[in-house]
């Protein structure tokens, strides 16, 4: 039973939960079992937020055990060190500096750009990701986020990391 563990981290208001929603929807569209979990409430007020997404043939606990994340997406530079202990040894960290600021048309689509980078490593088709992006966002934001997704995907591919 193989489960992929992803944690998205950042600050309240950065789109952490939107990113994890899109990832979970993508796994759902791919016909996988999926669970996601995060803490609401106080974290809405600009504090640290993390959201866990787990998918595979069968998922039990909705929470990624500490130190067992296969992938860690971090939307705020200040949160990288805070969130790093969540990653397993050999896990892949996708931090905000991965995405060149100048290439990102809208800074608010950093979350989708990092999903693009993540998609490079996963067996989930980019078409499903983009379908989930379109379903999650209003139409006027589709184009800019599709570009952000492709940018992230390209950057990750250019890093030459082989799965």
């Amino acid at each position: 039973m193989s489960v992929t563990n992803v944690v998205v981290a950042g600050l309240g208001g950065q789109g952490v939960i939107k990113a994890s929603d899109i990832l979970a929807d993508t796994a759902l569209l791919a016909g996988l079992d999926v669970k996601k979990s995060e803490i609401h409430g106080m974290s809405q007020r600009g504090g640290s937020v993390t959201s866990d997404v787990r998918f595979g043939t069968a998922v039990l606990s909705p929470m990624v055990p500490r130190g067992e994340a296969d992938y860690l997406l971090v939307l705020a530079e200040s949160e990288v060190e805070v969130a790093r202990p969540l990653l397993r040894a050999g896990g892949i960290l996708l931090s905000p500096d991965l995405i060149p600021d100048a290439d990102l048309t809208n800074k608010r689509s950093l979350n989708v750009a990092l999903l693009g980078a993540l998609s490079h490593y996963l067996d989930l088709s980019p078409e499903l990701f983009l379908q989930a992006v379109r379903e999650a966002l209003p139409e006027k934001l589709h184009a800019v986020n599709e570009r952000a997704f492709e940018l992230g995907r390209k950057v990750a591919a250019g890093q030459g990391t082989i799965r």
Partner: protein
Amino acid sequence: MDRQLLSGDEAVALAALHTGIALGTGYPGTPSTEILETFDALGGRAQWAPNEKVALEVALGAAFANARALVTMKHVGLNVAADPLFTAAYTGVGGALVVVTADDPGMSSSQNEQDNRRYAIAAGLPMIEPSDSQEAYDFFVAAVEMSERWHIPVLFRMTTRVCHSKSIVAARAGGGASAPAPRPHFEHDINGRVMIPANARPAHRRLRAKLAEIGEWGETCPLNRVERSGGDGSIGIVASGISYMHAVEAAPDASFLKIGLVNPLPIEKVRTFAASVRRTFVVEEGDPVIADSLRAAGIAVDSKPEMYRFGELDVARVRRILAGDTSPEVASARGKPPELCPACPYHTVYATLQKHDCIVAGDIGCYSLGVLPPYKAMDTCVAMGASIGVGLGLRHVLPDEEARRVVSIIGDSTFVHSGISGLVEMAYNPPRTGHVVIVLDNGTTAMTGQQEHPGTGRRLDHGPTNQLSIEGLATAIGIPSVTVIDAYAEPEEFDRLLQQRLAATELSVIVARRPCILAAADIRKWEGQAAEFRARAAEQSAVCEPGEENR
């Protein structure tokens, strides 16, 4: 098959729709808030009550009228609703009444981590606990069926990770409960519903008889199930709720008795299960409720060390529990704490309280964040509405020079929830030095995600309704000095006013009014819609005026 990715809260809302819940009511509280919001969005009839006690009473009335009713609240909300709850256990219901209590182990957004399974035992009510969104859906349907079958309110316990985690749900084809929702109607049942002692004594016996029957049913009901693994049968785990998910992942080779009906517990089923394995372990979050009950029934079980009573469980902690590991745990990095929004209208209030070295009796809401740096301008925060009573108590006994620095601060929604009685107490038993209550009125229940309340004049769905006037109420209660001010726009004026009111021996209410920065745009939109609605209504009533019939 229709597969949807839903949170536990959303799954309950969907099940409520499919079971024909006629009325859903409650008070917002993390992690329960989204149940009624989703129920409304799906087309159900959902409304916010001023507090959980009123919500439960409204739902109880609906269930007395043979309707199916739902009431939702967070764990501490059930403390507020406990008074009607305990006696509703005696009266029972005609239709169905499901009471959702959403507990918050680990206190992600709460002031305590009380374990509300204790309420089921104390009130003598059946309690059902789901482990994920599919079970939240399925078990809610079961809760409605149980409530109708035994004419008893059913407690539905969820926890933060069940409420807010999303997992896949397949809704039942053709909807939920096996029987269609009954048509509301009234039948007199004076002996059953008027709880004077002569009626309550037999009612208590009836309740215990129902519970005994439910307990017997629970021994074989599908809510509790045994799962044999391919392992060697040496360890058997008894678990419920989210703990079950963690435990299956942590110990895939164990056998399980998965408990969905946590009160009354299926004692004989557990006894048989325990006899079939070499070692029985109870894995539960929070208090040792199941472990204690099983031990009291003479079943030898192992359970977690005391250190795991605190906080949430997860897979890693369950592994440690099963291994008997009591070595210190690695603390998670704290990260950045939440804070008042940069443009929050309350900044000036806290800055002024800090400047005058006030003793601040605080309350529950995002304004509780005023306790954090840079202001550190809160000295107590205990329960919804407690700021006023606590402030009065401080004023009564402190020496005058200290008493004069005491201020109570309370948000608008919190004030309506349970601050009104405190204000009545203030008028009734005024401290020698007077008192100052500041109502922080940002026009919304901000902390839980901007829900409406009676003071906003809008219903749960943001449509217009009667509006409670906080200043009008304060005046009616008999508070001699009532002032409304925008402290954010007029910080100096607010400073002067506060100093003046602190110096006076008169009772004062200051309403610091300015919309929450997160809700301001929405509030403008809803107010616009309400104005349009009123204009149209006025036009239509003009059409009907005498002399207009020839148009």
